[in-house]
C-alpha cells in the first residue's frame, strides 16, 4: 500500500514538471503578451514603441524562453507562484482569495449530488423496469443533456427575476460574511451545479448497483436466506460503492477549477471565474498557475481515489 502510494507520487512529480513545461511552452505561442493587455486598445497606438519595449524588458518578457521557464519553475518550487501580469498581484494571493468561494460551491455540489445521486440511483436500480425508474432515468438523461449555462440562466430567470426568491448572483454582501449569511447566494448556483452533477452520479450509481446486483454472490447471499435489505445494501451496494467512489473522485478536481461556466453565469467569484478572466486577458502566469493547480488537483485526487478504492475494495488493497 505504501509502495503503491510512493509509486503514484513518483509518477505525479515528473508529470507535473512535464505539464508545467508544456503549458509554459503553449502559452508562449499565443499572440500578444502581457504588455499589450495592460494597455487599452483605444490608446495603445498613442504609446511610444520605446516605452512598450521598456515595459516588456521590465516584465522579463524579453529573456529567452528556456531561461524564463526555469526562473519561473524555481520560483514555483519555492512556493512563489509569481505575479499576475495584469495587476502585479501575487498569484498565491489571488488563488487563496478565490479558493474559498470555489470550495464552498463545489463542496455543496459534490455533497448534494453524491447523496442524492446515490440514493436515487440505488432506488432506480432496485425498482428496475418500473415507471419510477424510467422517469428517473429520463430525468437523469435530461440532466446530462441540457447545457449547464442554459439551465443556470433559466433558473435565474425563474427564481431570481420572476419570483424574486433568490439573488441573481454574487457571493458576498457587505456585512454578511458568515457562511450562513451567504446561503441565499449559494442556493441557486449550488442547486444548478448539484442537479447537473446529481444526474451523472445517479446514472452511474444505478448502473453500478445493477451490475453488482447481477453478480453471482448476490445469489449466494439469497441462498443464505438473508433479508432483501441485507442483500441489496450490505452485499449489493458495498460492491457498487467502488465505481461510485471512483466517479466522485473524478469530480474532486472541480474543487480547484470550479465549474467554470456555472461560476460565470452566477458571477461567483471563484477560481473558475478567475481562470476565464485570465484566459481572456492572456495573463500567462495566472492561467498557467491555475491550470497547473487543477492538474495537481486531478493527480492528487486520482491518488485519493486509488487509496479510497483500495480501502473499500480488498482485492485492490491486497494486491
Amino acid at each position: 500500500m505504501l509502495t503503491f502510494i510512493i509509486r503514484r507520487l513518483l509518477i505525479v512529480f515528473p508529470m507535473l514538471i512535464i505539464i508545467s513545461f508544456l503549458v509554459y511552452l503553449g502559452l508562449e505561442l499565443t499572440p500578444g503578451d502581457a504588455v499589450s493587455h495592460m494597455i487599452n486598445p483605444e490608446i495603445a497606438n498613442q504609446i511610444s514603441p520605446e516605452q512598450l519595449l521598456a515595459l516588456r524588458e521590465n516584465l522579463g518578457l524579453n529573456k529567452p524562453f528556456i531561461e524564463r521557464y526555469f526562473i519561473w519553475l524555481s520560483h514555483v518550487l519555492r512556493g512563489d507562484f509569481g505575479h499576475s501580469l495584469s495587476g502585479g498581484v501575487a498569484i498565491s494571493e489571488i488563488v487563496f482569495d478565490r479558493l474559498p468561494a470555489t470550495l464552498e460551491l463545489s463542496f455543496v455540489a459534490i455533497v448534494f449530488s453524491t447523496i442524492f445521486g446515490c440514493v436515487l440511483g440505488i432506488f432506480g436500480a432496485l425498482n428496475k423496469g418500473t415507471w419510477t425508474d424510467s422517469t428517473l432515468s429520463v430525468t437523469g438523461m435530461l440532466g446530462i443533456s441540457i447545457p449547464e449555462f442554459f439551465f443556470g440562466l433559466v433558473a435565474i430567470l425563474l427564481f431570481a427575476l420572476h419570483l424574486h426568491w433568490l439573488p441573481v448572483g454574487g457571493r458576498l454582501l457587505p456585512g454578511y460574511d458568515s457562511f450562513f449569511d451567504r446561503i441565499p447566494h449559494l442556493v441557486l448556483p449550488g442547486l444548478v451545479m448539484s442537479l447537473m452533477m446529481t444526474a451523472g452520479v445517479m446514472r452511474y450509481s444505478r448502473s453500478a448497483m445493477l451490475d453488482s446486483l447481477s453478480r453471482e454472490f448476490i445469489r449466494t447471499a439469497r441462498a443464505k436466506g438473508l433479508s432483501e435489505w441485507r442483500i441489496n445494501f450490505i452485499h449489493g451496494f458495498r460492491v457498487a460503492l467502488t465505481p461510485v467512489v471512483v466517479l466522485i473522485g473524478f469530480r474532486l478536481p472541480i474543487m480547484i477549477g470550479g465549474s467554470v461556466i456555472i461560476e460565470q453565469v452566477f458571477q461567483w467569484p471563484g477560481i473558475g471565474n478567475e481562470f476565464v478572466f485570465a484566459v481572456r486577458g492572456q495573463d500567462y502566469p495566472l492561467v498557467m498557475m491555475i491550470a497547473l493547480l487543477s492538474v495537481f488537483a486531478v493527480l492528487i485526487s486520482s491518488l485519493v481515489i486509488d487509496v479510497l478504492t483500495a480501502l473499500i475494495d480488498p482485492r485492490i488493497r491486497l494486491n
Partner: protein
Amino acid sequence: EKVNQLSDVRVRQAIAYAIDMETIADTLLEGKAIAADSMIPNGAWKAPGLDNYGYNPDKARALLKDAGWDDTQTLDVVYYYGDQLTADLMVALQAYLGDVGIKITYRKLEGDVGGQLGKLATAGSETSAIEWDMAYGAKAALALQEYYNGYQSGKNSYSPGSAQVDKLISRINGTVNVKEQKQAFVDFEKYENKNLTDIPLYYQQLFVYESDRINRHGGSYGNEQFNYDWGLLDWTVEADKDGKRVAYTNTAPSQFFEHPWLNPGITIQQKITFDRLLTADGSLVPTKGQLAKSFKVSKDGMSVSFELKKDLKWHDGFDLTGSDVKGSVELAMKVPGINAVFAKTFESIEGAQDYTSGGVKGVSGIVVDGRKVTFNFATLDPNMLLTFSQFPPLPMHLLGSVNPLEFQQQSYWQNPVGSGPYKIEEVQMNDFVRYTPFADYHGGIAKIGEIVSFPSGENDANVLKNAAAGRLDFGFTKSVGDVKALEAMENMKVVPADIPYTRSLRMNSYPKKP
C-alpha cells in the same frame, strides 16, 4: 504590386453610401445612437453642411463600378468589442456591403489588440503593417484635438496621412484662440468629410442611470466616463429596512484598482476617492478648483498656478501638499501608457524633456511654493486645464519612490489611499468594495452613509441582474441593450448624456504585404 483599393476615395465613399446607418441606429441601436457625419461630435465646433453619405446603394454601386472594384475579394473586418451588439452590427454591415458587391468576413481581434490595430509600418516601407482591411472601432477623446491627432502621418498604418493633413492638424493644435481653433477644426472636418480618412458611423451616447432611492439634490448629469462636478457630497439615499443609508454601484475591481492616470474616471473608485486640482462641468469644461482654492492662467496660456486649499489630508491622515502635486506629475511622465491628453500636457511643461530623458532630478517648469504650485509651459497646450481637471495627484509618501514601469503593480492598488470625499473601508476583491465618507474631507462630510460597489461593468449581464435585484443605485453605461432593459425597470431612471465618442470604420489603405 497591387494597390489597395480601399485607398481609392470612391470605394470608401461607396462603403459609406452602402450602409444604412439611419436604420441601424433606429433598429439595432434602438434609437440610442445618432448617425455620424464626421469624427467630431455634434456641437459648436461642427462644420456646417457636411455630407452625411445617406443610404444610397445605387450610388455606391456606381462608385464601385467607377473605381473598378474587384468583387472577387473578401475584406477582412476586425473589431474588438466582445458584446452581442457589435456582433449584430457586423451582421448588418456584412449584409449591407454584400448588397452592393463588397464581400466581408468579420472576426474579433484577440491577444495584442492595440498592436494589431495600430501597428506602424516600418519606416520607408510602402506596405501596411496590419493585416485587416477594415476595423470597426471607436474614438473617444477627452479633448476634441484627440479626434484628429491620430491622422498625422507616421502615426499608424491605417491613415496614410499627407503634408496637407499634417498641416491641417497642426493648425488645430497650434492655438488657444478659440476662433482660430474653430476654423481649423471646420477645415479639417471638411477635408475628412470629402476624403473619408475614417468612415464615421454613429455617435454613441452615454447613459447615466440611477434608482429611485437616490436623490441628487440638484447635482448635474454629464460625461460619466470622466470626472465632473456631480455634487456627490449632497446626494442622499433612502434608508433600507435596517435603517442604513447605503447606495450600491458597480465597477468594483476583480484583482486590483485601476490607476486613474489612464482612464481617469472610468471606475467609481477613481471618481470618489480622488480629488483633482480642478473640477469640470458635465461637458468636461474645467470650471473651478477642487483641491485648488483658486487658479490663474497667464495671458499667453504658457503658465498656470494653483493655490491649494488649507489642511488638505490624504485618507491616511497625511497632509496633501504641493510636492504631492509636483511629484505626481513627475511620476506620471515616466509611467507608460497614461492618458494621451495628460501626456501631451506634461510633455509641454518646461524641462519635461530633460526630466524624462533622465538628465535632471526634477521638472524645472513645476514650481512649488508653499501651497502654490505653478506650471510653466514650453509649448502651448490648449488642453492643460482639462488635464488638471482630470488628473488626480497621488500620495507621494506612498508612491514617491516606486518604479514607474511597475506603477500598476504596486500593492498600493490593492487598497488605494486617496483624497476624495469617500475612502475605502473594506475591499473583498471580486466581491465588493465598501466606501465610507472621509471625515477630514475639505468640502465637508458626504451624506450617503456608505457606498458599496460590486464587480460588474458596462456590457455586463450582471448590471441588469444587479439592477433587477435592487443592488444598483447609480452608474453609467454606453450599452444600448442595458439602457433599454434599465428603462423597462420601474425603479430605475436613465438619463442620456452626449459624449465625444464616435464609432467608425478604419480603412487599411496601404497595400498589404504580399
